């Protein structure tokens, strides 16, 4: 893999980390508001369903996870297990797809 690609991956990893940190904070603040505000699970779902803003937010959350996790695992697999090459990248791509599918499935269930 070229140095340029490595740099991009490094950058994407850091950017997605910053997005995730922000998403976790928003998610946490929302949970505190919902639970402390006395909203039941039913009422929470009542507010999230059909709300495009929440759908967009959690889609970004899932997208950032989908980028951040495989790139992080890539470094771990290379440095700890010595697994390099196309096989590793294909496996990580598959894992990323799995995360995206599972995450969006959950987001759609909360939205629809």
């Amino acid at each position: 893999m070229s140095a340029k690609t490595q740099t991009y991956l490094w950058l994407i990893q850091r950017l997605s980390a910053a997005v995730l940190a922000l998403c976790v904070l928003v998610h946490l603040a929302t949970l505190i508001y919902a639970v402390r505000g006395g909203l039941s699970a039913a009422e929470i779902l009542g507010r999230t369903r059909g709300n495009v803003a929440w759908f967009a937010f959690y889609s970004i959350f899932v997208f950032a996870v989908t980028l951040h996790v495989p790139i992080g695992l890539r470094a771990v697999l290379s440095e700890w297990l010595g697994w390099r090459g196309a096989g590793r990248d294909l496996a990580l791509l598959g894992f990323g797809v799995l995360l995206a599918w599972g995450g969006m499935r959950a987001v759609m269930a909360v939205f629809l």
Partner: protein
Amino acid sequence: MHRLSGIALALFLPVHFWALGQALQGEATLESFLRWSEQPLVKASEWAIVLLLAAHLTGGVRILMIEFLPWRDWQKTLAALAAAAALAIGLLFVLSSTAHAQGWPQKPVKFIVPFPPGGATDISARLLGQKLTEIWGQTVLIENRGGAGGSVGAAEAAKAAPDGYTLFFPSGSVVTANQYIYANLNYDPEKDFVPVTNVVSGPQVLTVPANSPYKSVKDLIESGRANPGKLYFGHAGIGSQTHLAAENFVFQAKLDATAVPYKGEGPGLAALVGGETHFFVGNVAASIGHIKGGRLRALGVTSKAEIPQLPGVPPIASVVPGFENTGWFGIVAPRGTPKDVIQKVYLDTRKALQDAVMKEKFFAQGLAPVGNSPEEMGRAMKEESELWKNVVKARNIHVK
């Protein structure tokens, strides 16, 4: 540490996404989500996420600062630890909030029933109370506080501490009609209570004493029309479900009959057996024992069709076209009761109602399990409240 926690989170995430998506799929999405979130494994995994996220964030923030900020090492470590601590505290705060219902109930739970023993409200509360006692491992006590169409018990329940240990088990009209009937009500159904779940519902049955000359609904109607004001009907108290059901019948059958209030359905039916009144539109649960014991004769049911518990008893609608009346009994809680306790009572009641033996017991009483959510119950109560507002106004049923 950063990598280890990252690996653990990476392994956990697909499982978490899959489980959440799975729980929310299909028809009963809300119920399955609530059941899922109550699982001990899910609760335990929430704690695992807190620790993993805190650990991962510590390392992550530190890495970002090393690479992008010109701070000293000890400052970076301190800032990272502060960020992680803030995250952990926040998440623990959320988890401790949702953990409230896990320890509930720690002592006996009281159902205030606003009618004396023997009526349908009392029977329903006792049947459910027995099953919830098994589920909770804590006794469910039934306290009968009859009087003023359920208003006495309602006022007491409204003043109870909102800790979930005192719940109110009324018949529908106590929380949907009394506010339009009583000028000086000591409680406000909308402001003082929050819905938990509608437990059971069922039709009523029009009965007369076994030795009554009226053999059919038609006989009763003809007699009432021929002798205005000379037919007396009992009920469980002004504004009670039995009162409104009878008023509805009288109104739609175009009779002129006189209402006689009793302190509850049990006493009202006993008075009918003793011949004090001519007819009673009671709940099947309270009336069926008298009917099967030969003390009362059933003339008609308030459902659109015959019911299996009373074979051969025709619907009143066969004589009064379009007539239908349904009674219900449910749980409401004093406003301020913790939401998670309300959810627990609702879910456990739902579980109790799914029990085959319970279903059979309620069926024998002419009642069908409902177990709807607090939100659904709230909507249904609002709709019914509007209906009774109109009926009460049309029939001029008022107590000053």
